[in-house]
């Protein structure tokens, strides 16, 4: 099996195909600290792409309650368990997180889903460790996620045995998910008909419906379970990253690259999506003032979801601050501690970049900060806070200014009757 460079793992890894990298890569950052599970993203996607017969159970975008829920149910628990069974006690990270783009989280010393499949006693045809979810696991997203049942008469307390939880008395958070348009897609690797491909211009992973013959190997292989089988067409389908919008060919886009429907609909303003430049070795080329590059490689607050799977996902998450670290380290890798530290006490630049989220539905390719005077100094949660009257300017693909954000004092008071008018 060829080897490819996986910068998220800080090492080379086995992958069924030779490395080929797109010019730019579709990528996104979700700030979990803001997600309240309003499901606007879920419905925006559903009403755009998966509202037809045979797609009833398909949710290309979904928001699930972690650690209790999942769509399909227990997807991450199951694949983590398979990996642990394949490589008991050795799914660990080593080395030390570094500053470079090559091994920012250290080195993953365990096995990826590709490596575990090669060593496991699976059929020769199985290139990826995975499983096929059952009907039950697909058919009820979010059921009981927030309000699980408990024993009769025992309320507001954990079960003594810890086996069955009455209600979520402990921590939880919402995990919004779409296809990660991975750099080394497991769905692509597993397809016996080569029906799945990664576009060279933007790295979006698409499934050619005319080539698909419904083997469901992609459904089995995708560790994030973001390819889904449609019974009435007997083909699999997946998130297409709203590619007409990203291309700027959607009539609404007026030729400018636009963010996807799920991003645009996010009322919690947790989402930012963009296109990052990929270097020849598959890492992110230095692009200091691309907001995604800044969040992932400079501020280091945004982390990949389950990087240990080995697909090099292009979805990044600002991890929830209140969740116990061991859980977060399993989910986002060893970069969690630094990410949380940096997001609790945001730097002047990070605070400015966080203001770029959802101020426009156009893709931001570059930002600039015009520094202003310090306007506040104080403390919050026992940490020093300084605020500046900085102006953040966002630019689109052709360098045109999309918008600028600044702060203003004193407060402009509007009458209640017109509080929401422009």
């Amino acid at each position, binding site marked *: 099996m060829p080897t490819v460079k996986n910068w998220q793992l800080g090492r080379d890894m086995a992958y069924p195909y030779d490395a080929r990298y797109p010019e730019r890569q579709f990528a996104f950052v979700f700030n979990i600290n803001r997600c309240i599970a309003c499901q606007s993203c879920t419905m925006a996607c559903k009403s755009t792409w998966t509202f037809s017969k045979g797609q009833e159970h398909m949710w290309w975008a979904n928001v699930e309650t972690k650690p209790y829920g999942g769509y399909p149910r227990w997807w991450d628990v199951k694949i983590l368990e398979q990996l642990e069974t394949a490589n008991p006690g050795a799914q660990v990270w080593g080395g030390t997180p570094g500053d470079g783009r090559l091994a920012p989280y250290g080195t993953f010393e365990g096995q990826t889903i590709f490596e575990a499949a090669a060593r496991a006693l699976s059929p020769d045809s199985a290139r990826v460790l995975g499983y096929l979810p*059952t009907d*039950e696991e697909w058919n009820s997203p979010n*059921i009981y996620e927030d309000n699980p049942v408990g024993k*009769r008469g025992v309320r507001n307390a954990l079960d003594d045995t810890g086996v069955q939880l009455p209600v*979520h008395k402990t921590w939880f958070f919402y995990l919004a998910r779409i296809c990660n348009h991975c750099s080394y897609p497991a769905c692509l690797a597993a397809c016996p008909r080569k029906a799945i491909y990664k576009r060279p211009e933007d790295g979006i992973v698409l499934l050619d419906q005319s080539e698909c013959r419904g083997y469901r190997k992609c459904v089995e292989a995708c560790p994030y379970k973001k390819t889904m089988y449609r019974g009435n067409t007997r083909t699999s389908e997946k998130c297409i990253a709203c590619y007409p919008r990203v291309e700027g060919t959607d009539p609404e886009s007026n030729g400018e690259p636009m963010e996807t429907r799920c991003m645009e609909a996010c009322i919690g303003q947790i989402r930012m999506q963009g296109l990052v430049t990929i270097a020849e070795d598959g890492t992110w080329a230095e692009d200091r003032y691309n907001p995604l590059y800044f969040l992932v490689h400079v501020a280091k607050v945004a982390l990949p979801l389950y990087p240990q799977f080995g697909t090099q996902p292009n979805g990044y998450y600002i991890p929830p601050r209140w969740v116990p670290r061991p859980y977060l380290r399993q989910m986002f890798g060893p970069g969690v501690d630094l990410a949380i530290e940096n997001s609790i006490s945001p730097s002047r630049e990070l605070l400015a970049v966080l203001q770029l989220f959802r101020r426009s539905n156009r893709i931001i390719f570059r930002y600039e900060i015009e520094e202003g005077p310090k306007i506040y100094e104080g403390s919050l949660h026992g940490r020093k806070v300084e605020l500046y009257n900085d102006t953040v300017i966002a630019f689109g693909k052709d360098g045109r200014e999309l*918008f600028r*954000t600044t702060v203003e*004092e004193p407060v402009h008071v509007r009458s209640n009757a017109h509080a929401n008018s422009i």
Partner: protein
Amino acid sequence: MSYHDPEPEDPQELVGVELPGDEAVTREMAATFADEFAQLGLTRIQILSLYRRAEYTGAHQAWRLLGEDEIARIVDESLAVYGRFVWVVTDGPEEVAGSVAQPLRLVRRGS
């Protein structure tokens, strides 16, 4: 919320294991939401209603556990820093030939 006996064979039934968590975690979650939404420019009423509404289970659970007064204190703490300014977003000029660009000013916060 139902309270019938769990049926282990029921795939819709949620079973799980105990995970560490306490009031401090809930307080941290509540403070995080307050910080984030204050940074976004929501008003005190808007942020408080996020906690009061049962639809937003995470925030609402914190409100139930900590109480209105404590949540209000947490929100005020965040607003004391991030709520003292108006975040103003100005759209870039449209590239339409012959027209004069009119920046659109969106005042995202009231008083």
